[in-house]
């Protein structure tokens, strides 16, 4: 091998480092915005809905997108669909919050004692597969008819999913981080809130999302089964009523409302949380 010459160089000065990224085309720049891409997806979905519904051509089973939007505006203007949604959301939030609280207690116990872990695992595998109607008798004994029972059923649908995800997240926290936490003298609640929860946050967020979605499902379905007294119904009741009156576009308007709320919550709340936490911390790509 021929000997290459050695060399020593002068360094560039500090102010030269501000190299910028190669410029993107306008299209790339627009397409790089998540909400643009998602809006495009939504437009395509709406189009598919419209075209398929026209092809099916059965307003009583599957109304078109436009008919649904129409019914939705109508519902907003006259049918009080927003109040109904508000009513549902209020109950939902109560059930969700209580569910999270109980899940927190259970997983806290589960992570700090072996017995707690056995208890959580056993209860989850026993109760998680039970449908809401199975709880109806107990709900009626404990809370009677009305909001109390609804919330009870909501808690049931939120609790186990959140607890499972949180617990599994806790168990997956790296040994090193656990040791660091213990090293600081943290234990009990401090240890859970300051170490385990942030470290398991990706899992917990997933649990929160699933819990949220299942709370909606359960609420809509449960409003039909029990706990509703006339006059105070929410979105689920709205859908049921319209279905019985065969006002199918209004039924879909109700579901459309659920979808919109789902999109809003995902994109305004969960995305923001994600961006401010796990993404910022480099825990998720």
């Amino acid at each position: 091998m021929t000997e290459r010459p050695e060399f020593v160089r002068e360094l560039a000065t500090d102010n030269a480092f501000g190299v910028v990224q190669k410029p993107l085309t306008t299209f790339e720049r627009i397409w790089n915005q998540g909400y643009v891409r998602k809006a495009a997806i939504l437009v395509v979905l709406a189009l598919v809905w419209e075209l398929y519904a026209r092809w099916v051509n059965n307003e009583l089973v599957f109304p078109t997108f436009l008919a649904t939007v129409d019914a939705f505006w109508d519902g907003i203007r006259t049918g009080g669909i927003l109040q109904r949604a508000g009513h549902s959301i209020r109950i939902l939030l109560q059930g969700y919050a209580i569910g999270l609280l109980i899940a927190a207690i259970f997983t806290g116990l589960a992570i700090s004692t072996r017995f707690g872990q056995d208890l959580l695992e056993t209860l989850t595998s026993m109760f998680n597969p039970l449908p809401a109607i199975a709880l109806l008798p107990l709900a009626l004994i404990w809370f009677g008819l009305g909001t109390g029972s609804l919330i009870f059923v909501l808690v049931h649908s939120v609790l186990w999913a959140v607890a499972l995800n949180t617990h599994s997240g806790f168990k997956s926290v790296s040994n090193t981080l656990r040791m660091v936490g213990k090293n600081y003298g943290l234990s009990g609640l401090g240890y859970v809130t300051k170490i385990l929860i942030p470290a398991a946050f990706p899992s917990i967020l997933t649990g929160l999302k699933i819990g949220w979605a299942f709370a909606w499902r359960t609420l809509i379905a449960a409003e039909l089964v029990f706990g509703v007294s006339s006059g105070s119904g929410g979105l689920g009741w709205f859908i049921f009523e319209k279905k019985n009156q065969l006002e199918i576009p209004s039924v879909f308007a109700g579901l459309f409302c659920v979808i919109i709320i789902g999109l809003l919550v995902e994109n305004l709340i969960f995305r923001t949380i994600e961006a401010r936490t796990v993404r910022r911390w480099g825990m998720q790509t």
Partner: protein
Amino acid sequence: MTALLDVRGVTLQYKTRDHLVTATYRVDFEVLQSDRFVLLGPSGCGKSTLLKAVGGYMTPVEGTITLKGREVTKPGPDRMMVFQEFDQLLPWKTVKQNVMFALTSGARMSTRAAEEKALHYIDKVNLTKFADSYPHMLSGGMKARVAIARGMAMEPDILLMDEPFAALDALTRRKMQDELLQLWDDTKFTVLFVTHSIPEAVKIGSRILLLSPHPGQVKAELNSNGQDKIDSATGMALTEKIQRMLFADEVEQVHD
């Protein structure tokens, strides 16, 4: 003078599904107040495991570990640990917050005092510019330096350091070593230090424990004054003496 830390006949084992791995076998040593005690030994000989046992994370299957006369049963901020792993920083806290959090929750300091102290030590490890970065934006060596800053900032009774300087370049390493010695001069804390580098052991340590290969057993305990002193008996420098002791093994191994 009684020992600050007394490790007596400690055997440490890992029980896995299929094996029983003995990490160290009947190790004993004493660390006195203000010792700079170095654990030196080949890879996998159980240094980290020993440190974890002192830290209170593992219970010996044999023997006892006592700190200030009381048996070690659980971890605590009186024994601040700098781990070997790169993921020892809390990913959800910035560099500054990481150091501060240790101070506020471990040493129960006020936020203001903690911030001041944190910035002081972050400066000592040359990371002021990165005080507001999250750990995932740091290089390996920078993470290691944050952990060092955190450990030193805690100013604990006894500092347990597991190869803290392994990921540092020669220059930075020398600076860190000097900082550690400087701090020791100031506060005379006790440190239990694992390293792979013989010169580092000689420079940092006041007392050096040599461990045998896996499973770790005590092979020798030597004094150092940081100057690579010449042994009067053999006429060898301390580094050379230690090297000999290690290399003896190699010769044996090669001829196995």
